């Protein structure tokens, strides 16, 4: 659907010129300029760490630029606070929601508004606006009882109530099922047709090509180019985004061998009032295969990881590792049997932030000779850390650098490397490339595939569906604590996975034939 409101010579609503922002270790934004017209859906495209979020924070008044100007409707403006940005007519939907879980929808919205509205009137407004734009929500619900997709609606409605002239969407689809993404796109197109400008931040090329009128590509803090997405291919956009070719991972088909991990009707009640209970999860993973588990955040991924790793104990026979019943064993004992795992959180869980990489090797590597009879052997420890750093090309000072000084991608490489070099028989990985730059993401995915080729059994839980389609031998979906049957990627489609994500494991597929992308690019 073409947006007919954008006349080629209509005056720009927002113009950024020469925006620069420096932090002690990095220049996040370097001389960035862009321009957005009324009713235009403008993508800001770039990989993790390219500077997109910083730029949006500057526009929304959370951060002040070190240099550069902002022009709004032809006037120079210095945006110093979010409330000033809102007064100008700028709204922002954050990637990580700014919602208070223990409060209700209307209380959350009341906090974000700049004027006081009596609660009954506000609730009525919320109902009206949310239904008008196809995102209905109940104003009196407590946020913690809502799914991630519903919470995003609250964020969007919150912005819509203030009748924005520019709406900034920061990576909005990472928490949505494929069907919900289509609903969102309808909402955005409707807004644009009413004259609202939209800045759409993403690294998902298919979506940008399906939705956006124009794109500014950021790389390393600078503008690497601008484009009309509909005239581009994924490859050409990727070239602008990463400055090279997207390397391709491929799986050579092989016959999986003996069963390494078996879950038998795993049921685990959650101790967290905001968590998800796991219900009757059964699966097997064999040597030489990767089982990918897809799902939108909040459906039990955290709980499943904790149950598999041993951070949460369950009943003995529900989990079998290499034939042994391990449900009631702690992580250290499971490691002795050949299990390793890479957690979703790097700093604070996979690594201790103030400790050096060498000591962080000791966290899980004590079997590798660095600790005997209760004493630590620092030379062995440092040697191990050095070999991880070398083999996985971790960019850091040396093995004495503290974990918190590494970038997200490099720390993830170190953790994946550490767990790989423990020579596991079974490896569990949660969100392998979240927040990681494209180069490191490639290396990590290839490392996982290499392990699979060597006969290790892998279970990968990820919210990036595209990634799972690339690296999995088989795929299953986790929805509301239940696991769908597993299928081969070639035998399913994004549409079917999307349907399964709403928990309907028995219904036929949604849009698109097997293998076809869900979104049609005009």
């Amino acid at each position, binding site marked *: 659907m073409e947006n007919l409101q954008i006349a080629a010579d209509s005056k720009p609503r927002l113009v950024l010129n020469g925006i620069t922002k420096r*932090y002690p270790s990095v220049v996040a934004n370097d001389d960035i300029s862009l321009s957005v017209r009324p009713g235009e859906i403008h993508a800001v495209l770039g990989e993790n760490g390219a500077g997109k979020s910083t730029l949006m924070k500057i526009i929304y008044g*959370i*951060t002040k630029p070190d240099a550069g100007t902002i022009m709004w409707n032809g006037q120079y403006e210095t945006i110093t*606070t*979010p*409330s000033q940005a809102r007064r100008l007519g700028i709204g922002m939907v*954050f990637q990580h*929601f*700014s*919602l*208070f*879980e*223990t*409060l209700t929808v209307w*209380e959350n919205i*009341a*906090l*974000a508004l700049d004027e*006081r509205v009596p609660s009954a009137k506000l609730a009525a407004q919320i109902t009206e606006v949310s239904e008008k734009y196809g995102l209905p929500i109940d104003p009196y619900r407590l946020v913690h009882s809502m799914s991630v997709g519903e919470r995003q609606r609250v964020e969007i409605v919150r912005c819509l109530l203030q009748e924005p002239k520019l709406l900034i969407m920061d990576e909005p689809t990472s928490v949505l099922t494929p069907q919900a993404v289509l609903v969102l796109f309808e909402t955005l197109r409707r807004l644009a047709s009413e004259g609202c400008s939209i800045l759409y931040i993403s690294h998902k090329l298919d979506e940008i090509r399906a939705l956006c009128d124009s794109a500014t590509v950021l790389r390393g803090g600078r503008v690497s180019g601008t484009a009309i997405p509909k005239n581009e291919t994924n490859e050409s956009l990727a070239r602008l985004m990463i400055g090279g070719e997207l390397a391709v991972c491929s799986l050579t088909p092989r016959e999986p061998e003996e069963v390494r991990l078996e879950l038998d009707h795993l049921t685990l009640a959650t*101790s*967290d*009032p*905001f968590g998800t209970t796991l219900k009757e999860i059964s699966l097997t993973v064999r040597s030489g295969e990767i089982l990918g588990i897809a799902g939108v955040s909040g459906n039990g991924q955290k709980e499943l990881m904790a149950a598999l790793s041993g951070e949460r104990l369950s009943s003995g026979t529900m989990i079998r590792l290499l034939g042994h019943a391990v449900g009631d064993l702690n992580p250290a004992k499971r490691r002795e049997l050949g299990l390793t795992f890479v957690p979703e959180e790097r700093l604070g869980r996979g690594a201790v932030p103030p400790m050096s990489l060498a000591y962080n090797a000791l966290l899980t590597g004590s079997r590798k000779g660095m600790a005997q009879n209760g004493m630590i052997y620092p030379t062995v420890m440092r040697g191990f850390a050095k070999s991880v750093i070398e083999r996985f090309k971790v960019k850091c000072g040396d093995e004495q650098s503290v974990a918190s000084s590494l970038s997200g991608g490099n720390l993830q490489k170190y953790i994946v490397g550490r767990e790989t070099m423990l020579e596991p028989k079974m490896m569990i990985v949660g969100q392998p490339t979240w927040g990681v730059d494209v180069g490191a993401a490639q290396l990590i995915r290839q490392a996982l595939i290499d392990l699979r080729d060597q006969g290790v059994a892998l279970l990968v839980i990820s919210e990036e569906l595209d990634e799972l389609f690339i690296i999995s031998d088989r795929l299953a979906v986790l929805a509301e604590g239940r696991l769908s049957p597993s299928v081969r990627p070639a035998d399913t489609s994004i549409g079917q996975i999307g349907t399964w994500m709403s928990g309907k494991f028995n219904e036929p597929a949604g849009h698109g034939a097997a293998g076809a992308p869900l979104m049609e690019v005009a």
Partner: protein
Amino acid sequence: MNPIVPMISSTVVAATPLIYAALGETIVEKAGVLNLGIEGMMLIGAVAGFAATLVTGSDTLGFLAAAAAGIALSLAFGFLTLNLQTNQVATGLALTLFGIGLSAFVGHNLAGTPLPPLPSITIPGLTSIPIIGDLLFHYDIMVYLSLVLFAAVQWFLTRSHAGLTLRAIGESPGVAHAIGKPVLTTRYLAVMFGGACAGVAGAYLSLVQTPMWVEGMSAGKGWIALALVVFGTWKPMRVVLGAYLFGGVTQFQLFAQGFGLPIPTEFLSMLPYAATVIVLVIICRDPKTILLNQPASLGISFHAAA
């Protein structure tokens, strides 16, 4: 002479300083700040209030001076924990040690000087009702003001927009900051409010309950007030009820003597402390209670990311 009425009255009097201190700390903790320095602030308030009343002869000025002293000390705590991001537990302990030392130092020459206690009020017609009159209408003004404070705190937290903002900040200061709420200012105001309440609580001890200045006279009531906030799961109504319960426990000594129970006085004195431990165990047993009620950011320093 019926011993029940004086027991209940003394319970109410014993509970009143706990109410002031605990309600103050409830607001502080709802904003996400853990101030362990209540004991120190109470003692400073006690000595300041006592000194002011001794010099001016006015109890009102005494309580005001106590509140001011509590605020002053809490500002030091606020500066360290909010601006300089120091560890809240350690800073609160430092505040307590400093408060104990400073109050003893300042009050060195005041020890032993008696003061006339704050008079109980009399409401014509109501106070003279037998039994009920003494039970409900024959307390000093600060008792009634403590209940007014309870009503105000309850209204603030549940009905006012400022209270909503404070609760949001206590749950997630990062998010509150992102939507433009004044995190530091709100927390400062909360900490100062807590300081004023703790100061007044201390002055109640030295101006009404005892009324005299004795080194370390709060004897752990500040810590009990902290436990009361947890016991009340950060809800003002429960905190106040808990205060009356504890008031009763601290007075048990008198009850026992009144009934001639042959328990050594030291063991009776242990009761409030043992009761505090038991009460904490009961509340903390189910992790869900804490997860659902404790302000999520309690005790964690907030650094506004640039």
